[in-house]
């Protein structure tokens, strides 16, 4: 290539963080990529019922350069920052190749082995054979030349130089699922593993949907209940804030009135990897019943700024609307 200054280039000292974060949203084949001066935003969606996104802040990279595209002439508005679609599977497999010295090379084939993922990710930083511990550099260069160009990833390791050019596809602008964060009906924060355990437990009855019920709490009603009905039975996990424990499961709860909504269980399963990788999750319902799960993922020490970096993975799930319309009061949902 001639001496074109690439529109975007970044160097990552380890692809493992990126791989971890992208795996959390990898339920779809393709991902939408948005490049900006602050970082890279990857998003995936399934129909218009579930959407997930993760923002890779430029601080996660050792170096990050972005040259905004120039407008065609001084009269024009500056063009939109680049966004395109790539095949997410290919990107993940490529990053997988680049973390050769990492743990298991087996890839997940669609289904989520959540327990193993949980175990793997919990111990991701503690293995003696990680890149950092071994002092092996897995330095990776990313670059993008502009519309129509490929997203290139370049790496040098043990005498071999590997370059991957990912085809970028034109993306249709997809409206994000709207979430009204100013008008919440429920907000709670808990450790992600409790949510994972609850979803795993519900999964055992093979349900089609999961119901979230929340109330201010009383003798007869739990603060938060996750329930499901399936061919093999029913299950419900109730959470309460009424506890003398110093470390309550629900670290905080905001719920002015009773509310409930149901979601396709497949959407919850799509978020399992994020649940397994995250430390905490913030679960919110807005007044339309849209469920927002925001996962806080701690990236182990070793990121460029030296301190323990964090990243957020967000899921938004549209509620199921049954024949009776959105419910106002609690109780287990009848099967759809």
């Amino acid at each position, binding site marked *: 290539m001639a001496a074109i200054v690439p529109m975007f280039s970044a160097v990552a000292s380890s692809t493992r963080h990126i791989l971890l974060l992208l795996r959390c949203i990898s339920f779809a084949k393709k991902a939408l990529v948005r490049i900006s001066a602050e970082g890279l935003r990857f998003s995936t969606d399934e129909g218009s019922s579930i959407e997930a996104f993760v923002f890779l802040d430029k601080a996660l990279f050792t170096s990050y350069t972005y040259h905004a595209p120039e407008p065609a002439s001084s009269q024009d508005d500056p063009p939109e920052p680049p966004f395109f679609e790539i095949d997410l599977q290919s990107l993940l497999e490529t990053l997988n190749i680049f973390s050769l010295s990492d743990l298991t090379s087996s890839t997940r084939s669609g289904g989520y082995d959540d327990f193993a993922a949980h175990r793997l990710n919990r111990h991701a930083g503690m293995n003696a054979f990680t890149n950092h511990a071994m002092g092996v550099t897995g330095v990776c260069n990313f670059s993008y030349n502009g519309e129509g160009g490929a997203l290139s990833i370049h790496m040098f390791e*043990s005498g071999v130089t590997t370059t991957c050019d990912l085809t970028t596809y034109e993306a249709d602008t997809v409206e994000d699922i709207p979430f009204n964060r100013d008008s919440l009906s429920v907000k709670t924060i808990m450790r992600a593993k409790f949510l994972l355990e609850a979803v795993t437990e519900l999964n055992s009855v093979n349900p089609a949907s999961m119901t979230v019920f929340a109330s201010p709490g009383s003798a007869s009603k739990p603060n938060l209940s996750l329930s499901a009905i399936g061919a093999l039975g029913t299950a419900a996990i109730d959470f309460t804030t009424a506890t003398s424990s110093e470390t309550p499961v629900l670290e905080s709860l905001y719920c002015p009135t009773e509310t409930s909504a149901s979601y396709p269980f497949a959407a919850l399963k799509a978020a399992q990897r994020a649940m397994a990788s995250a430390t905490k999750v913030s679960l919110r319902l807005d007044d339309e019943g849209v469920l927002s799960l925001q996962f806080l993922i701690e990236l182990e020490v070793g990121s460029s700024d030296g301190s323990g970096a964090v990243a957020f993975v967000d899921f938004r799930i549209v509620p199921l609307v049954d024949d009776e319309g959105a419910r106002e009061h609690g109780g287990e949902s009848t099967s759809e």
Partner: protein
Amino acid sequence: MRFRAEIRNVHTFTKFTASLATLGHIAWVRLDSKDCRFTVIPESGTQVWSVLTPDVIFDTYTIQSAAPNNTINLEVPLAPLQRALKSAQTAIAANIRLTKKDNVPLLSLTITTTTSNPSGPAPTSTASDGQDGFGTATNNGFGSGTDDFREESVDFFGARQDRETVVTQDVPVRVLAPASVEGLHEPRCREPDVHIVLPNLMQLKGISDRFTKLALETKSSSTKTGFASSSSSSGPKLELSGNMHGCLRLALTTDAMHIHSLWTGLENPELDPSQVAEGEAGLANHPSTKMKARGDSTGQSEEGWATVRVEGRDWGRVLSVGRLGGRVIACFCDEHALILYVFLASEEVGGADSVLTYYISSYSA
């Protein structure tokens, strides 16, 4: 005809047999006074022709036959041979000989192992491996007898702490008439365009396998059943290229991406003029000499590459020969074929190297 020998290095022979077994089910084994040749020619996919000096795997090599040079040609099934060698992994001695039982010719391996067994029943050898109809195992020289027999032997030897166990593994073979092997010869190929010493084969295999997995994983889900088919022609194709300036490139192209790995600083061995037809003049006109004029050592230029397309899984199996160590020279005939020469150093000082030659046809673009 007679053939008998001590297997000198079971581990080497086992690894060698394993490399052959990945390519095909049966091998043509040609033994004579000078060398031992193992050839695998599968229906489709890579062929391997290997020439080993007997001392690489055998000691006290004795061979005798009516044919010139005491040549014996055998057809040997590789999986039973592998199973037989498994019994020999912890052996203190292993012998192999050509014999006949009930009119069936076989290669009989006699394996002596020690087992320390303070108490308990007689150690059954890894006879379970040999029981699939191909091998029979005998304990302590008794016939594969009844339970009574075995119990007796337990009582008799039960008190001993250490004992020597002799296991016999039989591999049925076919003796080939000279006429049937006359027509077999190594594939003839034009002079290669590029010859280059390959980097560490296990590293190359690691990367090749990941590329193959990448291609398989990212294939559209509707064709995931491709796993079930074992036909090598349906697998993902990797593009392997070399140039005369020490560069080797492995590439994979799918709809969604193009990925390649590049090695530089590799050695291009000099051709020996005495080996080239027409000597020095032939050397000047040799395709590889012409290739040297093109391309560069950074590998960035598009010029000067000789390329072949190999099927990912077949290539991975060929590369498993890397566990034998040894120097590997790859000869590329652009768009046509790839020939790999694997040199195993001789145990004896000044002895000839053994060579395994792999012939791989290229798929068209």
